[in-house]
């Protein structure tokens, strides 16, 4: 009985193929309303792949706006040659100081060479300030 092919047995696991830990992210200060802004960006190099391990999105209002607009913190994935899709986001439309929302998750998604993942935020308010956090962790390895 064969339970694994000789080819599969000869190929190391992904985490043994020249792995590189990728940790990207940013926490802003209290920032004014702004257009969609990417806080980190990661593109898979040629000949490599990337296994997404975890992501984090978060926002917290520090000072009230007048009026408040849509607040969004998100992660977007763009396949090579494709269009961006929002992988995860937290959206708010509240104006209380200290209001916040966030999410952290694990996700075993494999990105191929040329694929991109980015974390960004937007605040459509007038005035006021919000702190944003976006981050990812994963492992890059030989394809």
């Amino acid at each position: 009985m064969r339970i694994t092919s000789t080819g599969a047995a000869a190929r190391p696991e992904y985490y043994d193929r020249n792995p590189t830990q990728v940790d990207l992210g940013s926490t802003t200060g209290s920032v004014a309303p702004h257009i969609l802004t990417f806080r980190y960006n990661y593109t898979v190099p040629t000949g490599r792949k990337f296994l997404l391990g975890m992501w984090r999105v978060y926002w917290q209002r520090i000072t009230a706006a007048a009026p408040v607009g849509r607040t969004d913190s998100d992660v977007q994935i763009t396949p090579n040659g494709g269009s961006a899709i929002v992988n995860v986001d937290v959206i708010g439309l509240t104006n209380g100081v200290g209001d916040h929302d966030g999410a952290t998750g694990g996700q075993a998604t494999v990105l191929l060479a040329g694929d991109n993942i980015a974390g960004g935020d937007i605040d459509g308010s007038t005035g006021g300030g919000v702190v944003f956090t976006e981050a990812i962790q994963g492992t890059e390895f030989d394809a």
Partner: protein
Amino acid sequence: MLVRVKLTGSGVGRDALRPNLPTYSDVLHLHTQGFAYVLIPDDTHPELHKHASAKFEQTGHGDALIALDEAGHSAWHAHLDKMYQEHKGKFRPEIA
């Protein structure tokens, strides 16, 4: 390493305001001035440290590259084209 780069993108739809880099992590965005301080992987941009025209500024996050001549930019862009062949000609970061 820390670099100060120009921002691109309209911020409308999916065209986010960002540095024109394949990989970076934000340290400080200065929207109104049109540039940002970002961290980029040292091992994927070896030309920048050593280039004769590189000038640095001391910041609270370490020395930031703030000047690079045309030859330095060309070498950097060529390196990015080789490393990201699926996006040849796309990544054209500009030190600001």
